[in-house]
């Protein structure tokens, strides 16, 4: 006998039929609106993140579910999955990265234009996961900087949506000068980039 479904069985009424992104904080008067440039840029970037999926194993299946109609990442402005790193903002590393694959991930990261973000999806990408062995990279943060880790083996699509939302928070609040700062350059140098 199938297990009774115990969640998502009561229909909640929609609070709003369509939700809009609210405008950034600012000063509004008749016929004008003043705000910070970085807020507007952040708002635009945040809601149009182009992900580049680097899917190598079973987490990739969850990613497909995430992109398909049921979970539909398009709702968060990320429906445009691109397979060229030069157009993408967010590198999603999905699945086990073998040591032999590490230079490929790194090259893909280097080919992305700034500003770029990285999301490590699943236990393997975050820490090597169950593969504590000679052939598997013990977390992609050994070769590239990672912004958001999504735990799970594999994580459910909801968890990845949450991860994407955390990336959006980072994108929206990022200082426009961050990528030119000394601190950022130091961070990059620890990975041997530039």
């Amino acid at each position: 006998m199938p297990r009774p479904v115990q969640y998502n069985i009561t229909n909640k009424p929609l609070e709003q039929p369509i939700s809009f992104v609210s405008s950034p904080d600012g000063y509004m008067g008749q016929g004008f609106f003043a705000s910070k440039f970085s807020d507007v840029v952040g708002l635009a970037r945040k809601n149009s993140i182009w992900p580049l999926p680097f899917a190598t194993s079973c987490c990739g299946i969850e990613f497909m579910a995430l992109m398909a109609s049921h979970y539909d990442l398009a709702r968060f402005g990320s429906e445009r999955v691109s397979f060229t790193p030069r157009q993408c903002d967010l590198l999603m590393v999905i699945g086990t990265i073998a040591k032999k694959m590490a230079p490929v991930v790194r090259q893909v990261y280097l080919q992305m234009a700034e500003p770029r973000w990285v999301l490590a999806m699943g236990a393997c990408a975050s820490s090597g996961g169950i593969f504590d062995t000679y052939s598997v990279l013990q977390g992609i943060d050994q070769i590239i900087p990672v912004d958001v880790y999504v735990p799970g083996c594999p994580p459910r699509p909801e968890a990845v949506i949450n991860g994407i939302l955390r990336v959006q928070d980072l994108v929206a609040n990022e200082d426009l000068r961050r990528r030119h700062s000394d601190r950022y350059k130091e961070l990059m140098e620890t990975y041997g980039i530039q």
Partner: protein
Amino acid sequence: MVLTNEIIRNKLTEKFGDQLGDWSEPYGTLTFTSDKNLNLKVLQYLFDEPSLGFQFLTDLCAVHYPDNEGKELAVIYHLHNLRENVRIRYKIFTDIKKPDVFSAYALYSAANWMERETYDFFGVNFLGHPNLKRILNIEEMEYFPLRKEYPLEDQQRTDKDDEMFGRI
């Protein structure tokens, strides 16, 4: 005539005498060993002799026996007679300090990648191999991962539960 293990064994004993030993038949597959320097002669005979005709190399691999002093590494050839559908297994042993074994590449082309793989994981040095370099692992790797002598990865790390990874 059906090629039985007995016929194969008699043929080989006729040719090589006492140089082959440790005859056994685990799961019906005839298995024997010899000195490692004899491997090409035995393989050549098995290949050329028309009544044997083991012309297909199914697999070539190694096993590390750390307690088997002086014979730590075993190199194992799985041979197949496709006409009679008979398989045999041939083992040679080598010292891990000097793991030199003659390459079977000239006889079986399939040995090319298999020997590279065996070198990659066990460090068996196949003399006469045309391109003996790592095939699966990263080329910078400094150890042979399937030898039972190296701890895997960093033993000092604390982010993984040791009990779950068999480190207690």
